[in-house]
């Protein structure tokens, strides 16, 4: 007799809500594991660096502040991947949405946006930033989606560069728009708060300097850690929303467009509307990411938010992490930032430099190699501060030989999306 399990449960009086939660947890076990790991990371980091082990952990583990940057930029890279990786339309001007979000949040806080007072809660302004970016996406998309391939990439790039030049030289923004705009400390002295607007107890301020610190049970979280958790929380919610869309019938149509748009149209889908919707969603989350970025740093500049190389960074993260896998760009960005921090010029967050100073005796560093150039000098010349070179090489190698990226390759190996395959894999282990 064909009775669904739910019906059986209801008859037997089993709480269906509980069953639903168990099913959900089962489906998302991969996500739970990642979230648990990231949730424990600050604690692990502080314990391991406290142990010291001669600075080895500090050298290899990314700082909490770096991880926060990975979160908000990872969200931007995911939104880039949402349109570029899933529909195959390379949105080379994606930075315009990131910048729109960032500028909007800062301008609201500075009281430069009509109708919105400087004390507008951040959660409201970041949401509006997303909506604004989505509207910009619809405007750009309505023109751009008449084109495809290289032409689509170029027209979106053109729009983004128009916005870049405009914001770079628009004097309304501040005295020196080229250097960007910062939050006015007079109009908006408080840090931006993430939480539920209006309920003071449910808000925590973010930012490395002005953020809240929390003491709770045995935990003692500084402003950096609080920012990490709060921004991570927003990014998690955004990721889950996008993940839901990607695995819905809507997401299937996007993949169909990527694989063969003519066939998708022949089957009866109005692909133009699907592309527009996907672009708007992607723009929305890019705008939210830009808002988080601006809130964390309290400033935004044309070169770090609107320039086409910002899109290039998202592209790098997507290719390394996995083009067409939603979570991939986050890992790609983690890889990118990790390498950059490891090879940083100052050695501020650990990395190679202090490690070498600690462990390699000066006699080795001063050994000459060629033309009187010492080992130390060659490290200084070729390694520190030049992570872009190695990332570029990795990028080229990935484009040529690992087109699926990290997560895509893992997916191929498991035979399906990691989040879907892992539960079955674990169940097999238990048997």
């Amino acid at each position: 007799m064909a009775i669904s399990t739910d019906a059986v449960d209801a008859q037997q009086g089993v709480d269906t809500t509980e069953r639903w939660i168990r099913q959900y947890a089962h489906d998302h076990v991969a996500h739970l594991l990642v979230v648990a790991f990231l949730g424990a990371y600050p604690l692990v980091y502080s314990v391991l660096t406290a142990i010291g082990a001669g600075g080895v952990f500090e050298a290899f583990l990314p700082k909490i502040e770096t991880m926060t940057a990975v979160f908000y930029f990872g969200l931007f890279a995911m939104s880039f991947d949402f349109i570029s990786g899933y529909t195959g339309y390379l949105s080379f001007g994606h930075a315009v949405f990131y910048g729109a979000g960032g500028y909007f949040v800062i301008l609201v806080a500075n009281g430069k946006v009509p109708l919105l007072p400087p004390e507008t809660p951040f959660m409201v302004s970041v949401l509006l930033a997303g909506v604004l970016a989505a509207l910009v996406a619809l405007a750009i998309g309505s023109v751009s989606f008449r084109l495809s391939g290289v032409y689509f990439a170029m027209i979106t790039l053109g729009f983004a560069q128009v916005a870049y030049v405009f914001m770079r030289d628009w004097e309304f923004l501040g005295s020196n728009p080229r250097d960007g705009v910062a939050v006015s400390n007079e109009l908006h002295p408080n840090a931006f708060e993430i939480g539920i607007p209006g309920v003071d107890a449910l808000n925590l301020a973010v930012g490395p300097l002005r953020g809240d610190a929390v003491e709770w049970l045995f935990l003692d979280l500084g402003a950096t850690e609080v920012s990490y958790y709060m921004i991570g929380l927003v990014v998690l919610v955004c990721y889950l929303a996008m993940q839901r869309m990607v695995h819905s019938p809507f997401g299937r149509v996007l993949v169909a467009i990527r694989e063969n748009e003519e066939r998708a149209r022949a089957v009866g889908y109005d692909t133009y509307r699907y592309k527009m919707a996907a672009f708007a969603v992607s723009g929305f989350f890019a705008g939210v990411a830009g808002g988080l970025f601006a809130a964390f740093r309290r400033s935004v500049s044309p070169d770090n938010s609107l320039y086409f190389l910002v899109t290039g960074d998202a592209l790098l993260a997507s290719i390394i992490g996995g083009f067409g896998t939603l979570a991939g760009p986050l890992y790609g960005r983690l890889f990118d930032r990790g390498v950059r921090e490891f090879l940083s010029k100052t050695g501020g967050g650990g990395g190679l430099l202090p490690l070498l100073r600690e462990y390699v005796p000066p006699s080795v560093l001063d050994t000459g190699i060629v033309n009187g150039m010492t080992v130390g000098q060659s490290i200084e010349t070729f390694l520190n501060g030049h992570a872009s070179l190695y990332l570029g090489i990795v990028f080229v190698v990935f484009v040529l030989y690992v087109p699926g990226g990290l997560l895509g390759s893992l997916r191929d190996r498991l035979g399906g999306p990691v989040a879907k395959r892992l539960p079955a894999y674990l169940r097999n282990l238990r048997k």
Partner: protein
Amino acid sequence: MSAAGTVVDVLVSGLAKASLYAMMALGLTLIFGLLGVLNFAHGSLTMLGAYAAGLLMVTFAGSGFGALVWFLVAGLTAGVLVGGLGAAMEVALIRKLYDRPPIYQILLTFGITLVIDELARIVVLFYGMQPQTDWQAALGTKPSFIADTFAVLGGTVSHLELFEILWGVLTVVAVWAFLNRTRYGLVVRAGSEDDEMAAALGIDVRRVFTVVFALGAGLAGFAGALLMWDPAWAASVPLASETLLPAFVVVIVGGLGSFRGTVVAAVIVGMVDALMTYLFDHAIITFSGLPELTVFLILVGVLVVRPQGIFGLAEVGGH
């Protein structure tokens, strides 16, 4: 200033800008026309050419007219060096991707850009120079009379502008002559039209691809040499992205892969740029980003109205 002077000013500086734009974009359009690869590394190759030519000039060149001869040598050498690098790139990397979707070629060349730019930064830093700022020593190898100006009909014209126009025109003519008056040019045009047919007729298309990529890259290097002398551009690592974007605009406005279109688009973009620079310089419009903004607006406008560009084929653009 007289009206005639204004016209002379805008016209001459417009033509000079057009020459520079044409030189930045010619190689890009040549490569796209035959290979169908939108080369994101083009700007980086231009930047390498600027540094290579600058290095030769700083090392060897004297002053006066001798410097002009040296400049020709330096420009050609830069072109050959960068062209060789282009050939190596095509053989080692780009060749692997011809049968993948065109997006992958954009990705690959973008990655090559990252590598080239960072390598350039390492070398420049190694010799104790600042990669971000213009290389003044190379700018200084320009003979002083090049910077002189003279009056025509009430407008001012600089020797540098005339020099740039001359170089631009000569380069365009040389490429045109290569494509239309030589046997190899015929092969290239045949390959652009239909590479499978050309291969069926016994032409080694793979080698033609390599040669054209080298030629396009060489033109980028050659253009870099000229930019190295222009104070508005000059040799620096960011020159890579500064030249890449206008080159894209020119190539797309003209119609991807169309030689004639690229030249016409360079003139249009150069003229509009000069006009907007004039309007800003004379405080008629006070928005400082005006010339750059207009250049990108031209790109967007053309893609909206005529996606295939002025001289592009209809089936190439859109779907």
